[in-house]
């Protein structure tokens, strides 16, 4: 789907007298004699390479196939060798096509074993229109459903490859990237459905688990799943004592009209006229190291008349216009006799420590402020 086109689908087999050849290809004449000669050793292969997904790049093209070998006395030479493959431009990323090729080879193998679909000259001819339809539909919609005969149907779908998501921590806050109304509950598993109502961009994982009465790890996994599909993204817990600062991306609010629109619609208080860009931009720029959200509210009260500060922060984090500065305590000096620090090593933020120990920020602050051995880094 999209940018990566399948240029050609071919069916190759080992002919008893002619050797490896291309029996069918759509569109016709796509694979030149020269190209096939160069790559045939990877199409109709030695036994070691059979049943493996083989992608070979040559002469500006990529050929993806899975050579199949079915051994039986009834075949001339006691074996049937064939390969149904796809051809793309050499620069195409073809990872998504691999499962399709594998599945197709499986289908054809089954058909041959059940009804001799391929070895029978008459039924083999049906391959050509099948390949045509495949090519057309996979390129158009990325999916294809084809009945082959009364009992067999091919179902194929191109699955987009995504990056592995980050690990979700208990103190992370999931927030929907699109409007929640577009979300079709029934498409998702039961756990996800159960926690859906609690995903509001302010509750963190631990809180969701407690309020929805779902085990912590299940919540974590469900959110990770949503993260994988880009349905949610993670931000940090909101508190008025939080400190943020701008990133270079904040300028996109000035450059990009669509982001302006989206932002102003998102952050304006319900029932108010739309906030002014200048006010919103000033608010974001007012977030600096050392300034808490509380400070911002008192300094920029005029600008905040039409703006919901919580949604302002939320939007800023989602779009990476701002970033959170976290506090990390480090125990720099201690006597020989005391234990080495477990949490105060510079690796664990206040968010994490408070979540794990159940302390509030204030409590942690009080505890650490009076300890001369502990310094705090913000980053």
């Amino acid at each position, binding site marked *: 789907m999209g940018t990566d086109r399948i240029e050609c689908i071919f069916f190759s087999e080992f002919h008893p007298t002619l050797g490896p050849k291309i029996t069918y290809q759509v569109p016709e004449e796509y694979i030149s004699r*020269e190209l096939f*000669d*160069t790559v045939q*050793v*990877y199409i109709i292969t*030695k*036994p*070691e*390479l059979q049943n*493996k*997904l*083989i*992608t*070979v*790049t*040559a*002469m500006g093209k990529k050929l993806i196939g899975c050579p199949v070998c079915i051994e039986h006395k009834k075949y001339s030479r006691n074996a049937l060798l064939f390969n149904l493959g796809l051809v793309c431009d050499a620069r195409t*990323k073809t*990872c998504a096509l691999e499962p399709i090729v594998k599945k197709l080879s499986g289908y054809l193998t089954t058909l041959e074993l059940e009804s001799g679909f391929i070895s029978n000259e008459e039924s083999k001819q049906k391959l050509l229109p099948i390949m045509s339809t495949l090519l057309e539909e996979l390129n158009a919609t990325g999916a294809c459903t084809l009945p082959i005969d009364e009992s067999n149907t091919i179902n194929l779908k191109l699955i987009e490859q995504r990056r592995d998501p980050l690990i979700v921590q208990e103190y992370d806050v999931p927030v929907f990237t699109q409007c929640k109304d577009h979300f079709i509950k029934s498409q998702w598993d039961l756990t996800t459905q159960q926690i859906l109502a609690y995903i509001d961009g302010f509750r963190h994982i631990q809180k969701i688990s407690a309020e929805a009465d779902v085990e912590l790890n299940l919540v974590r996994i469900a959110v990770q799943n949503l993260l994988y599909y880009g349905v949610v993204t993670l931000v940090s817990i909101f508190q008025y004592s939080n400190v943020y*600062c*701008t*990133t*270079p991306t*904040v*300028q996109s609010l*000035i*450059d990009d*009209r669509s982001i*302006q*629109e989206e932002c*102003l619609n998102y952050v304006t208080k319900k029932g108010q006229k*739309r906030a*002014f*860009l*200048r006010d919103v*931009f*000033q608010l*974001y*720029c007012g977030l*600096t*190291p*050392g300034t808490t959200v509380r400070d911002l509210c008192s300094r920029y009260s005029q600008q905040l008349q039409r703006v919901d500060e919580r949604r302002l922060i939320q939007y800023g984090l989602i779009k990476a216009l701002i*970033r959170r500065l976290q506090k*990390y305590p*480090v*125990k*720099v000096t201690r006597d020989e006799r005391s234990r080495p*620090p477990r949490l105060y*090593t*510079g*690796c664990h933020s206040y968010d994490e420590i408070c979540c794990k120990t159940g302390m509030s920020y204030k409590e942690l602050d009080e505890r650490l402020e009076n300890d001369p051995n502990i*310094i*705090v*880094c*913000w*980053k």
Partner: protein
Amino acid sequence: IFFKCGEKTSPISVILVTSGSRGNKLLFRYPFQRVADCTSSLTTKQRSPYALNTTGDVLEDPDGDSRFSDIILATILATKSDMCGKKFELKIDNVRFVGHPTLLQHPHTIQANADPSVISCMHNLSRRIAIALQHEERRCQYLTREAKLMLAMQDEVTNMTESDPQSPFRQILPKCKLARDLKEAYDSLCTTGVVRLHINNWLEVSFCLPHKIHRVGGNHVPPEALERSLKAIRPYHALLLLDSEKALLAQLPLDCSPALVRLIKTCSAVKNLQQLAQDADLNLLQIFQIAAHLVYWGKAIIVYPLCENNVYMLSPHANISLYSPLAEGFGQQFPSHDLPSMLAKFSLPLSLSEFRNPLDASVQEAQLIQMVVWMLQRRLLIQLHTYVCLLVPPSEEEPGLLRDEELPLVARVGGRSLSTPSALSFGSPTSSDDMTLTSPSMDNSSAELLPGGDSPLNRRMTETLLASLTEHERQVILNIPAAQSPEDLRMFARLLHYFRGHHHLEEIMYNENMRRSQLKTLFDKFRSVLVVTNHEDPVISLFQSPLG
């Protein structure tokens, strides 16, 4: 040479295959196949070359290495002559082979999901080794000799008793230089990402895998991003070496360019590239090229030259752990100081001048600067710059959104062209602001072109500049008290095109030959229509992120 690569950026193995009149042969592979230690008749390296691999018995190997016997590798990797001279890529299940067949076959195997730029880098290395081998083959049949040696060893091992399970390749290694070179290439790629070989002790092949050298928070930096950043370097940037001068010079090959040596000897964190050009007696373009080269190889980074007014803050990617190797290194370099305490000081943005006047005078000033340089080299600090944006308070009728179009070029009267060095005419060096007074301005700075005072010409110029604004914007600006001063208004109008949030203070200073205090005063006078923020420079933030 085929490199087999994993999901990340390291190859799984390197393989050398030849195809000739006597058929296809796998000459060498590294790492050697693991000797299977299970009882069934498995692939031991002892096999006769005529035995076939029975895949059913082979141990599950996530790398897919032991699935491919020497024989099958020789067959599949010995491509036809039409494929020679071009990149070769073959993927079998989740293993990818990349190489550059020449008259000689050099496949690399990489795991399937490797980034395409990693693949093309591997291919590049393949090609370079192939070219070197080709050259040596023509000159003195180097490859034929090495190949004979390898085959002889393989035969010898095959003829030895069954009790010796040694891989023939293990025997080849001490006797055959080419094998050792390939092993070294593999090892280097897996660790540092920097490869330096001397084929036949004569031809040098050097190569670096930028993916290993440049990483941002765990992900590698794609070469295109690196290249984009390198293109955006300005003459007012500085080059910060990541090694000591001595160490760096020792790493250079004997026949390296004298320009490179001069540059390394002359460069300093307080000198911008333009000054460096003068001091090293090179033109700016050369400096840019050499600087880019050093950065690409991970030997230097681009920073803004160190000066009192530079403001630094802890990098979000900085490792501030008490037990990190960085903390240890810092303690060794600067005894009686610990890294976390130093880093804590930069939790709030701190200028160098503030840092240099700590309440405790126990630390020498010079040492403090050294500490900052140390921290910059290890990408623990980022530098913050001031960016300015013009945003006029909206009237009730105006929706308050900005116009779609950019300020038209008519507003950009005067000032230096902001393009890459080749288009620049180089004026006198503008040193970091606190050190000297601003030098005589550039020829095309409008401050020089226009006579001072409130001449009709000046007024016209100002009007033209302000013409790109909407009526409302113009009105608001003209109503500002400071706008009553024609000088101030003219300066404001002239700098208008910088007020889109993409040019930081130092850049404006450099281009317009103005002092920091001048600019700050101007910003203050017009603060009702300007919004100011501080953040890192996106252009060089790539170089401020940590390695590995």
